[in-house]
Each structure stands twice: as structure tokens, then as C-alpha cells.
């Protein structure tokens, strides 16, 4: 029987009927074809990023962190997993290099592994330093804000406190202690002045790319905006903040 004809016959039947297994090797393939294709709604469940590797997740978090004006939750588990992986890879590579029985082909593979390890290390490094930069910028704010403190790792919290203390001490020594007592405080601002502590600016515009369809949100002008799947828009950060935290939207 012609393979094409068989295929067309089973497609046109449309229901989940098993084709009587013929001797041809095309039988197994046609079984799959007779199963009804899942409806579009059900398909979206199969698009879940649960299948993404830790590296892809880290890349997404890294991009979000670079574009977001606030500090996003620390991905300690993910980082820990990747750092362990890097360590195991480098140890294996070291062992294989020292072992005289590795073949030429293995050596080439080792070079490839090392290239990839370097790239992963670069991304981890950039992620950590982006967070560190934001922490330095908002150090005084973090010391007073409980909610942001929960988003940081212990080491980052400690760094924020010591950095804030360091900067404060420097200002005191250079400027504030020489001023008359009425002016010697850092936080004493009048109503018409901007605050002394930099707060994260949630009104900054970001490019938001929707990975999944999202419920409608309200723009500052009052108009509602609904994100369909794979839609790219420029919005103020606070409009999409919770979607970014949930993973429905990523910043590009």
C-alpha cells in the first residue's frame, strides 16, 4: 500500500481509531497521526517553561535583572545549582587533562566544555554584579526597607549594610561634621527637595515581552492594556512588575 494513501486515509478518518497494523514500517507513525491534535488551549500548557534548562532560566533572570529598575528576588537555588555544576565540570576537566589515557578526540571535547563553562561563568558573573550595582545604589533604602531585604541573600544584605555605613561615614567625615549642628544631618530635607535616599524608580520605561497571555492591566493614562502571547510593548515598569515576578513577562 502506498504510504501516502495510507496517511491520507487515516487523517481523513479524524477519530482515535487505531489503524490495523500492517506489515509496513509506516504503521507506528500512523498511530501517532490518528490521535487527535490537542486543542490550542491545551497546547499552551505544553509550552510551559518547565522544560527549560537552569542555564536558560538564569539567562532570563539575568536579562530581567539588567533591565528592571528595582531589585528582583535572588535566585539562590538556581545560582547554587549552576555554581555546583561549574565546579563539577572543572574538576572533571582537570582530571581528564591530567589523565594520560584520554584520546585526541576527548581533548577536543574538553576544549568545547571549557568554552561553554567560560560562557556560563560570564553570565553568572554579570548577574551577580548587576545585583551588586543596584544594591550599592539603593544601599540606604535597603537598610530601612524590610521588603527589599527579603529579596537579597545574606551576603548581599551584609554588603548593603556595610556599604551604607561606609558612605555615611565618608559623608560625615568630609562634610557633615564641619557644618553647624543645625545642618549636620543627612536626612533633613525640606518639602521642595528630592529625598536624600535614592529609591528605585518604578516609572522607568521597559520593553516587556509576554511569554504567556496576561490579564489586562491599567496604564497610567487610564487605558487598559492586555498582553497577548509574544507581544512586545514599552510600558512603565510598575505596570508589568508583578508579571515579571511571576515569570509571565520578560524584559528585553
Amino acid at each position, binding site marked *: 500500500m502506498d504510504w501516502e494513501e495510507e496517511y491520507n486515509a487515516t487523517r481523513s478518518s479524524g477519530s482515535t481509531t487505531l489503524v490495523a497494523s500492517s506489515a509496513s514500517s509506516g504503521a507506528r507513525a500512523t498511530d501517532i497521526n490518528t490521535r487527535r491534535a490537542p486543542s490550542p488551549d491545551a497546547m499552551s500548557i505544553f509550552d510551559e517553561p518547565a522544560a527549560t534548562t537552569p542555564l536558560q532560566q538564569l539567562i532570563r533572570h539575568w536579562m530581567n535583572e539588567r533591565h528592571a529598575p528595582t531589585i528582583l528576588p535572588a535566585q539562590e537555588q538556581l545560582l547554587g545549582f549552576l*555554581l555546583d555544576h561549574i565546579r563539577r565540570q572543572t574538576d572533571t576537566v582537570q582530571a581528564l587533562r591530567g589523565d594520560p589515557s584520554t584520546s585526541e578526540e576527548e581533548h577536543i571535547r574538553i576544549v568545547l566544555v571549557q568554552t561553554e563553562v567560560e560562557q556560563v561563568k560570564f553570565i553568572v558573573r*554579570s548577574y551577580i554584579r548587576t545585583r551588586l550595582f543596584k544594591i550599592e545604589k539603593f544601599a540606604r533604602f535597603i537598610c530601612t526597607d524590610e521588603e527589599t531585604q527579603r529579596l537579597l541573600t545574606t551576603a548581599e544584605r551584609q554588603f548593603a549594610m556595610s556599604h551604607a555605613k561606609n558612605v555615611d561615614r565618608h559623608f560625615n567625615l568630609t562634610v557633615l561634621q564641619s557644618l553647624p549642628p543645625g545642618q549636620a544631618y543627612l536626612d533633613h530635607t525640606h518639602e521642595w527637595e528630592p529625598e536624600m535616599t535614592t529609591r528605585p524608580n518604578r516609572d522607568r520605561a521597559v520593553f516587556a515581552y509576554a511569554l504567556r497571555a496576561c490579564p489586562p492591566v491599567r496604564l497610567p493614562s487610564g487605558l487598559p492594556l492586555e498582553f497577548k502571547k509574544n507581544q512586545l510593548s514599552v510600558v512603565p515598569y510598575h505596570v508589568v512588575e508583578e508579571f515579571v515576578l511571576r515569570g509571565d513577562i520578560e524584559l528585553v
Partner: protein
Amino acid sequence: MSDTRQFCDLANQLVIEARRSTQTDNLLKYNDSLVRSIIREQRDLEKAAQQYMVDADMPPPPLIIYQTAIARNKRCLLAYHNHRLERLKDMYWNLGGALPQILNNSETRSKLSPHEVDFLREYNTSVMEFRSEFSYELDITAGIAVPPKDINVSVFVVRDCGVIQTEQGSIDFRKGQRFIVRKADIEHLITQGYLEEVA
């Protein structure tokens, strides 16, 4: 040209100096004399404002003017110092966290005030502490501007660095020689200027 100055003129000069520093991408010398004159001005303003410190319903206009000038001076001073701190931090990270290199370079050192040197030392300590968490696997002070394309890089030795341990064994870097080495091993030497990357 009259000799009288407006309030906050000196503070404006400080801010202009900070801007000049950003535009020329250069850290200028710490303007100690200007800072001191501004502080002196603050004290004079405070004394002049004292006489108006009456407890009335509406503060007298001179008091408002003095308070605004005082606040602006303070803010300009803090902005200048903050700006310098930012530039110092940038310099620190560009050199890969090599504090001795900044402090031993007499040209750079002369531009800093002693307080700034203390700040740099403290900052270095907190960064080292933070870095120790990851330093087994990776060095966070390495470069993040350019993603790695190749693991090996061809370098030209500008200054003698002596014998350096690399993955391929120990290599003796002498001035004028060229090597092909693993980038991660010698990156810190490139940032510190001992080696030069060749296209």
C-alpha cells in the same frame, strides 16, 4: 566685575567641576580649598540666619532665603562627594578590584583626599568579603563588558610579570614575547597592564 558673590556660587563651581569630570572622563583633584570655603560660607549663613529665628506664624522672608541657600550648599557638597565616590568605584571595578594598583599609582593617589583613600580601603574589604562566597568557582571581579568568544587569546608582553601558573603549566612572561594562553588565566594581567591583547 564686582567682588560680591551670590549665595551658593561656590557650590555651583563644585557642581560644574563634577560635570567636567564626567565629560572628560577624568578624575580631577579633590578640591579641598573650595570645599572648605563652602563650609565657611555655611557657617556665615547660619550665623546670619540666627537673628531671624523668631517664633512667628510666618517665617520672615530672609530666613527662608538663608535656609534655601544652606540646603542648596549642603546638597551640592554631598553631590560632589557622591560623584567622586561613584568614579572611584568605577575605577576600582575597571581594574578588577586591584586596590594596590590604585593606591600605589602616585598620579591617581594625589587626586584623592585621605578620606577617599579610607573609603576605598573599606569598600575593598566589603567587596572581598562578598567575593569570598563565590571565589571557589569564579572570580566576580573579572570583566563583564565583553562576553567570551574564544577561550584562548594571543597576548604581547608589555612588562615583565615573571613566572605565572596557568592551566597549561607555568609560563615565564618576559617583555617583548608573544603567547597564546587561556583567557581566564591572564585576564587580570591584561587589566593591570602587564600584557596586551593582540588582535
